[in-house]
């Protein structure tokens, strides 16, 4: 079923269309929520609340194209995750002096498979991964992140640098492990 038609039927509050939409996007949205949140339960709850918000906000949504509609739904999910973080995780990012931006080549990350990248991100602390997700994956600027999380831009940048450094360390450890496994084989 086309996404436009599906969304139109969801606007009319048809349960079958809502179920179709849920089945189509539940996995990707769960993974999105899991990137932000600590455990699966929180991610499930956050995804459910996100779908509720989507169905509630659909009557005011004007469909333009599939990409915009998917991004709109993702934005709702991210906002729900941030709300949950503020509520449950007591997201507290310590303001730090503006650290020099560490030039980290994302090529190393680009070479990773999606699953490996996902697992590396979930190993990051909450603060680091939140800023990393918002800046690198969602494409927000530091100013927007600062406004969203209630922190300064400097804090956002330092958190991002630390997240990148940690990812490099994790990546190095992983490479060492894989090399060791290959040697044993």
């Amino acid at each position: 079923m086309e996404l436009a038609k599906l969304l139109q039927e969801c606007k009319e509050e048809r349960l079958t269309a809502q179920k179709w939409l849920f089945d189509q996007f539940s996995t990707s949205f769960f993974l999105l929520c899991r990137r932000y949140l600590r455990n699966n339960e929180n991610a499930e709850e956050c995804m459910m609340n996100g779908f509720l918000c989507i169905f509630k906000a659909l009557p005011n949504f004007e469909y333009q194209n599939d990409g915009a509609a998917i991004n709109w739904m993702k934005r709702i999910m991210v906002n729900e995750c941030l709300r949950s973080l503020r509520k449950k995780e007591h997201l507290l990012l310590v303001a730090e002096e503006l650290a020099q931006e560490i030039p980290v080549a994302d090529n190393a990350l680009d070479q990773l498979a999606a699953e490996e990248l996902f697992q590396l991100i979930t190993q990051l602390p909450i603060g680091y991964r939140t800023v990393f997700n918002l800046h690198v994956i969602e494409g927000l600027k530091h100013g927007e992140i600062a406004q969203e999380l209630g922190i300064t831009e400097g804090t956002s940048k330092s958190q991002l640098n630390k997240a990148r450094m940690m990812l490099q360390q994790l990546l190095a450890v992983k490479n060492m492990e894989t090399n060791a496994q290959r040697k044993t084989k």
Partner: protein
Amino acid sequence: MHNEKPNNPLAEKLDGMNSLPEGFGFSANRVWDQLENQLQYRKRKPMLWLRYAAAIVLLASAATIWFLQKETATLKDSFTKQSIEQAPVNIPSPITKEAPELMAKKEMPLKNTMPISTSEVPESTALVQTSIPIEPIPIKDSIQTNETIAVAISSPVVTTKPAIKSTPIRKKYPVVHLYELYREPEPIYSKTAPKRTITETDESPVAPVETNRSFWLPKPKPVIITTSLTDNQ
């Protein structure tokens, strides 16, 4: 956030994940069941809200009515109690009637009469001393107005003649001795009976028969005897 994202290889890579990695899983059916319940609850919510609102309004109105009724009842009670307590009512002391004393007349003992003992008097005829409380006369409400009211007052009648007291005229009855009232009947047709002649000194109040007779008998018609003088007489 932007609806249209620039090309981001990492985001594209993560978005392209259609399968869950190891250690990351969720029950889609369970989440959908919860979501379905939430959606149906949201549909029912307006009706439930209306019902709750109606119930609250009804309860509130009933409570206010009950409260007002209770308040008025307490006000009435307090008013009556105060009015009863504060109203200066001068209840006169109950009038006691002294029981009449039975006084036996010693000077004039009754002869040929049955002696009556007080124990034989039935209870119903016994004298009972009662006190009748007199209720205070309610004072009528007077209307107080600031408006002037025209009242017609009759002017006093000026009389030249002084008021004469009319004394009741007492009838004077003649004092008659008892023996004068009763007299032995006189034989009407007895030859021996002395002729009674009415004298001027006779002051007997007995009316003549003629007068008494006229009271209850019809008046005798006068008989007119007409005689004609003829040659035979």
